[in-house]
């Protein structure tokens, strides 16, 4: 148990254990079965050999049919895990997710649950350019009935995926493409990350950095630099973007009186806007300065390295925003 595990291995174990525990768990997606390589990021490696190609199905290139099949199976009580290779490809399956998966419980008056999971990956920084790198969590956060989450370390990836599979509602899990090789302590098979619950990954008293996914590592780095200036930052990993843990965030910020929200998605109309708006709504009189947001530049994701770097926010941006916020307070 002291061995380290990679993000990809953690996901693989979560799928493996979930399939072993519950025969209603099935998988489908492009190239996910072993004959097709066990997933292009090897997350489903070995699973079709172990559980058969009836339960682990490589699909045609047909994302609407993939999600639709998952929806149909889910309302009969199965727990499908569908893989959409890259998040941008979810754009061809929005109807099944938004008009169907998210709404069938409500529109049926509670008669049909849609306990499906969509795993997908994305992220800038690997040179995949404009159509393979987008972070679209804010779209789904705006859709009542669906949940969206993303892990920042292998153990949480395990725990979130298992929780999502066991959850009665449709959940989208975003895996950051830069994370697969990241290693960390493995999770026990019983480990679950409850949906909707944030984790305080660093305690601090002077400012709250609210983030998720890739932002967690960056915020921890920023917190280290801020500590050198005597600024003691608390770092919150939301883990679930929607529904998000308002209580954890608000109680932290009520104490620190300052907050910076960090995410990889472009800033305008991103998830950070809701979090910022809520903090101001609830803690207006208590804040020492405005909540800041650090996010990527509002353009499509560029190809050339120099531009991709200009696109992505940096740790320095977080540090700067945090300093601005704390200085603002000194001004008042």
């Amino acid at each position: 148990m002291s061995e380290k595990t990679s993000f990809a291995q953690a996901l693989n174990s979560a799928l493996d254990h979930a399939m072993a525990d519950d025969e209603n768990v099935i998988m489908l997606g492009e190239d996910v079965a072993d004959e097709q390589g066990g997933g292009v990021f090897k997350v489903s490696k070995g699973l079709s050999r172990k559980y058969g190609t009836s339960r682990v199905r490589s699909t045609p290139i047909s994302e609407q049919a993939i999600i639709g099949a998952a929806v149909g199976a889910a309302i009969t009580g199965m727990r499908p895990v569908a893989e959409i290779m890259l998040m941008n490809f979810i754009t061809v399956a929005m109807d099944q997710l938004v008009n169907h998966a998210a709404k069938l419980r409500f529109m049926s008056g509670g008669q049909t649950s849609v306990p499906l999971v969509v795993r997908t990956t994305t992220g800038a920084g690997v040179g995949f350019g404009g159509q393979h790198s987008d972070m679209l969590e804010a779209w789904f956060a705006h859709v009542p009935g669906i949940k969206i989450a993303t892990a920042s370390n292998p153990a949480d990836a395990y725990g979130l995926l298992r929780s999502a599979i066991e959850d009665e509602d449709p959940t989208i899990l975003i895996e950051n493409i830069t994370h697969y090789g990241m290693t960390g302590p493995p999770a026990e098979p019983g480990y679950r990350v409850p949906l909707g619950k944030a984790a305080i990954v660093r305690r601090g008293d002077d400012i709250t950095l609210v983030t998720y996914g890739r932002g967690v590592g960056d915020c921890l780095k920023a917190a280290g630099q801020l500590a050198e200036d005597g600024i003691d930052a608390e770092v919150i990993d939301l883990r679930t973007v929607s529904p998000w843990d308002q209580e954890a965030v608000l109680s932290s910020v009520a104490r620190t009186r300052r907050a910076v929200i960090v995410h990889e998605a472009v800033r305008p109309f991103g998830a950070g806007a809701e979090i910022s708006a809520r903090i101001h709504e609830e803690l207006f009189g208590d804040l020492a300065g405005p909540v800041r947001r650090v996010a990527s530049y509002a353009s499509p994701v560029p190809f050339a390295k120099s531009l991709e770097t200009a696109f992505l926010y940096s740790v320095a941006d977080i540090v700067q925003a945090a300093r601005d916020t704390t200085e603002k307070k000194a001004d008042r």
Partner: protein
Amino acid sequence: MSMPVSPPSLGPDLARTIYRKAYLINRTDERFRAMLTNGELAVAYYPVRGQEVIAAAAMAALRQDDYLVTTYRGLHDALAKGIPSRLLWAEFAGKRTGTCKGKGGPMHITHPETGVMVTTGIVGSGLPIANGLAMASQIRGESRVAVASFGDGASNIGAFHEALNMASVWKLPVIFLCQNNQYAEHTALAAGTSVSRISDRAVAYGMPGIFCDGLDPASVYEAMNEAVGRARAGGGPTLLEAGAFRLLGHIFGADYSYVSRQDLHAAEERASMAKLRQWMIERQVRESDLERIEKEVDAEINDAVAFALDSEPPDPDDIRFDIYATEQAA
């Protein structure tokens, strides 16, 4: 359209069942439109007049636990699959006693007990979902089949294509039932569709493509029965097209002047209930049986209408529930 003598499999018992369903659909549709006309109800409604026999005969080939996914124009399918009239009427009227507690409405009828799993308002989106139902049955080793009911216009949308290809590759126990009523909203078939027979598209998926006469109970029943049998036996999917003609505008109240009175009268004549009645009598169904069925159905509808009108609308607070499995803070 001729009405050939049916093979023995469609005997008087089955014929009576089909007549009961068709009559129920026909009367329900008419009653509903009458109530819209006189203002007792105000709901977007997609009439099913002209497609009664398709639903009645096709669903007669299914078991109660077989799955159905249908569309906004789905009153006939839902009734034929067996949803109790009271629940359906109450949902159409937006009442708390309806199938979906008034949350879904006519475009989103769901009733898992009778296998009606999804009614969708998005053209073509039911087909991939039907695959999922069929896949669940296949994985579990059940003999249930899934039916996706949809229109001719829906055969031009991407979801149709993806669903048929996947069903073929996986040999799913699913029947794609295309009710070709010649129109997609106000667009005539040829103006939007590159083939005149939707079932010809089956070639592109390596699956059987069958055309049947949607006015002939035997033609529909036999074709459906064969497709269902194939699916249950592991033989994979079928694209089954039932020819019909939409006898009213796309949605209740819509213009329908683009069909000539002459063509419409001819179509109405072909699809008249009197003709269906005559067909039943030729199939050894007794006049007295038909009368009994009609009486029973009329009473069922009266009861359902009264039930729906008497029922309470949802409490505004009901909106908080059924969004997620466990209630969330707003």
